[in-house]
């Protein structure tokens, strides 16, 4: 964590009263710890995106193209013509304020420009000035203001303080979705080369190597081979993952974060053990791909076009390998892309079959067109049909709560599948308060490409509402494990927990599944996937 990060006791002293000066008259103050570094020109260039150059948000000169105002204006107009969402959301807000205290960044920072309504007004003010009659005639009286460099900087600063979590859109009486506004705003910024590196470089990596982390094919296989060794050491199970296998039944795609960093790696090991079990017990043939080795899609945080360019790999690889359908791992925004965009952008996937679980015979009718099934749906179905031999007592050292990730919640509606899985693989499960879970869940504070190191203060502030709810169940029920189905969560929440609620660790769903799974070849029973001894299991012989 960065050295300048304030202590938790200081950061929680938040003043939610807005300043005396109105937001239009308060210039933006770009503050260290709250923003992410500018994109590396090499990444921007590799993708063929505009205005690749070195620049620093703290400098006065952002090295913009001379006609940047023109570009923004034209870009804005084009998007108004292409997206009814933008047009309607620009026009119908009544500023009732219902969204104001729903945003985790506002709750955590008290900065009034983090109220969703004001974040949107930053764009709306320019929209009114440039595109509405009232704004053109009445100017500021109608809430309009002309585009200036200061306004542009304000856009950049606050559009990268929104994690596109959509919590505000649940409460808006007109369903105005700030994520949609942020997405458009970021698209406009990208037209003049104003991205952040934590997004641009993963996107460039993903384009070239197939995953955000830039892991090349041989290294990807190496990394999974490491897990094979670890799994053998901790459980005795000799798993054999398959790569780029033509004619496999199912292609599995998960975020590369799970291959790379703890505790996501344990989730990855969980998938591998589960697949191995299914292969040996039921003959299921699943393959990983090194080309489509990324479930996440930071293109989504760049522009619709970039999202489509990255997402195209999923179908194209499934077609090349000739699999029947695609299984997707635990990831947040990946699933919003798959659920709401993929089929429209890159479909129809008529070369695939309607997904059927070869083990249970269940038809996944909800995925009959995209042909892509979420692993929580897949596993819940296996458990329901008694196809997994589970010993939840192996997770008895855990007192678990579940963090609903933003996108699977508000962009898909997956609530009960992961809960069903959790309740079958562990015995101690406690929900956080109702206003902080399911469709009202709070973001980890690091979503939509904001999980960099340099914006740690923003992340800790934005994650406060989530952490505070965890703290509640930590104190009340002794919860020590936060389960989640999102790779960004797994990367971001450990920092957040260390900062606000020490003593709570983070896990993916399938780490717990694999830990409870009684694989016939399991010879070691005293350790979990982290190589840690399981309390109470030392002497016990649970092997068959």
């Amino acid at each position: 964590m960065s050295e300048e990060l304030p202590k938790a006791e200081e950061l929680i002293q938040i003043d939610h009263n807005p300043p005396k000066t109105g937001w239009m008259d308060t210039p933006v103050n770009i503050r260290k710890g709250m923003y992410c570094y500018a994109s590396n020109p090499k990444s921007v260039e590799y993708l063929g995106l505009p205005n690749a150059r070195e620049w620093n948000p703290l400098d006065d000169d952002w090295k913009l193209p001379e006609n940047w105002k023109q570009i923004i204006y034209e870009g804005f107009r084009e998007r108004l013509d292409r997206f009814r969402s933008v047009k309607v959301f620009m026009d119908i807000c009544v500023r009732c304020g219902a969204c104001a205290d729903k945003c985790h960044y506002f709750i955590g920072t008290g900065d009034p420009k983090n109220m969703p309504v004001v974040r949107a007004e930053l764009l709306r003010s320019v929209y009114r000035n440039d595109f509405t009659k009232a704004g053109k005639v009445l100017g500021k009286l109608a809430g309009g203001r002309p585009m200036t460099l200061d306004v542009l900087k304000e856009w950049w600063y606050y559009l990268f303080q929104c994690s596109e979590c959509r919590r505000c859109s649940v409460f808006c009486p007109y369903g105005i979705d700030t994520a949609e506004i942020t997405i458009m705003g970021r698209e406009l910024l990208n037209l003049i080369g104003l991205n952040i590196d934590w997004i641009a470089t993963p996107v460039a990596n993903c384009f070239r190597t197939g995953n955000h982390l830039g892991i090349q094919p041989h290294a990807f296989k190496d990394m999974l081979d490491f897990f094979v060794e670890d799994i053998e050491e901790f459980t005795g199970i000799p798993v054999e993952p398959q790569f780029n296998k033509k004619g496999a039944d199912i292609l599995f795609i998960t975020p590369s974060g799970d291959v790379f960093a703890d505790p996501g790696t344990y989730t990855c090991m969980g998938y591998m053990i589960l697949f191995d079990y299914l292969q040996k017990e039921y003959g299921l043939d699943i393959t990983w791909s090194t080309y489509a080795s990324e479930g996440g899609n930071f293109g989504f945080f760049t522009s619709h076009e970039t999202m489509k360019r990255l997402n195209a790999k999923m179908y194209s690889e499934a077609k090349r390998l000739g699999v029947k359908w695609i299984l997707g791992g635990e990831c947040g925004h990946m699933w919003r892309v798959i659920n709401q965009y993929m089929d429209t952008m890159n479909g129809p996937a008529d070369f695939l079959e309607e997904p059927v679980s070869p083990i249970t015979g269940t038809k996944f009718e909800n995925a009959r067109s995209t042909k892509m099934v979420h692993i929580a749906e897949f596993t819940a179905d296996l458990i329901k049909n008694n196809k997994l031999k589970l010993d939840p007592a192996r997770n008895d050292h855990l007192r678990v709560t579940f963090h609903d990730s933003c996108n699977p919640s508000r962009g898909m509606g997956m609530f009960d599948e992961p809960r069903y899985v959790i309740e079958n693989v562990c015995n101690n499960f406690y929900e956080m308060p109702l206003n902080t879970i399911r469709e009202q869940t709070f973001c980890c504070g690091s979503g939509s490409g904001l999980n960099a190191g340099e914006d740690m203060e923003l992340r800790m502030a934005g994650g406060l509402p989530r952490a505070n709810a965890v703290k509640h169940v930590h104190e009340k029920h002794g919860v020590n494990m936060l389960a989640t189905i999102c790779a960004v969560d797994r990367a971001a929440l450990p920092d957040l927990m260390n900062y606000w609620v020490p003593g709570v660790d983070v896990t993916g769903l399938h780490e717990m599944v694999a830990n409870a799974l009684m694989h016939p070849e399991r010879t070691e029973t005293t350790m979990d996937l982290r190589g840690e001894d399981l309390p109470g299991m030392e002497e016990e012989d649970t092997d068959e």
Partner: protein
Amino acid sequence: MFSLMVVLVLCLLAYVGVEVLGLQSLFGIVIPYAAVVIFVAGFIYRVMGWARSPVPFRIPTTCGQQKSLPWIKANGIDNPFSKVGVTIRMILEILCFRSLFRNTQMSFKDTETGKKISYRFEIWLWVFALAFHYSFLVVLVRHFRFFFEPVPAVIRMIEYLDSFFRIEFVSPVIQVGLPGFFISGLVLLGAVSFLFIRRVLSPKIKYISLASDYFPLFLIMGIAFTGILMRYFTKIDVVGAKVLAMGLVTLKPVIPEGIGGIFYIHLFLVSILLIYFPFSKLMHMGGVFLSPTRNLTTDTRMKRYVNPWNYPVKTHTYEEYEDEFREKMIEAGLPVEKEQV
């Protein structure tokens, strides 16, 4: 406050225009006609403008369990996978303000183990928003009695219900021939005042409010106030008002004598409201029907939807990928399409 000034000036304008300059036909005929034309044309123009932009992606906000496995209970309204579900969701949204009903209020509390954030159910905005819109609707419908001869039974019924709770006023105040006290007018004025006071007293809401948020509130306040004034406190010639209204709807406009300045203020403010409507946030009335996070089905994995402007993009193909990494792949034992370039 600028918006209040504008509304007061508008009132004055109408009063002076009628009482001093004698411009009854301008304020009683020309402006109302113009207002209706602008309202209707403007409203249609705006809605058509929205409708002209396509909906490329289905982006509903899912607020309930998706339909997946048959044994998991799906929430067909908050996560509507069928058109029926969407219809119910939209009806609840439009008639009951369902999303606003979810409203909570966040606050920080000091506890032994540090600050705790709590979220309290906050119902007042919903209550007053609902009160405001429905009382406005009732008042509007009641006014149709001026445009029909004879007055339809439906309107009589609404009037009867509206005045059901009789507040026993001292008799001289109540107009002859009109029974009771209309609760809707009072509720309207009360609710609109609440919405105004909320904007002023809550620092957050004050911060986000624009002149264009106060203006319609003052305008509606003015309309309700002059309406109540005419009905209960000053004598206005209701028969005359009806003659004028009937003249307008039958396209044979006449200006009857003696309906007074306040009536013209009332009518002028209504005209301004109609004119202002299509250019303002009041268009949320039309927009709420078109909101893509509410009015679309969530069956996007079951059914393919087409983006009318979908265009091909430059991707990085598997062939390009293999060409770059072929040697490394072969060395690592990964299958390749071509052993050599």
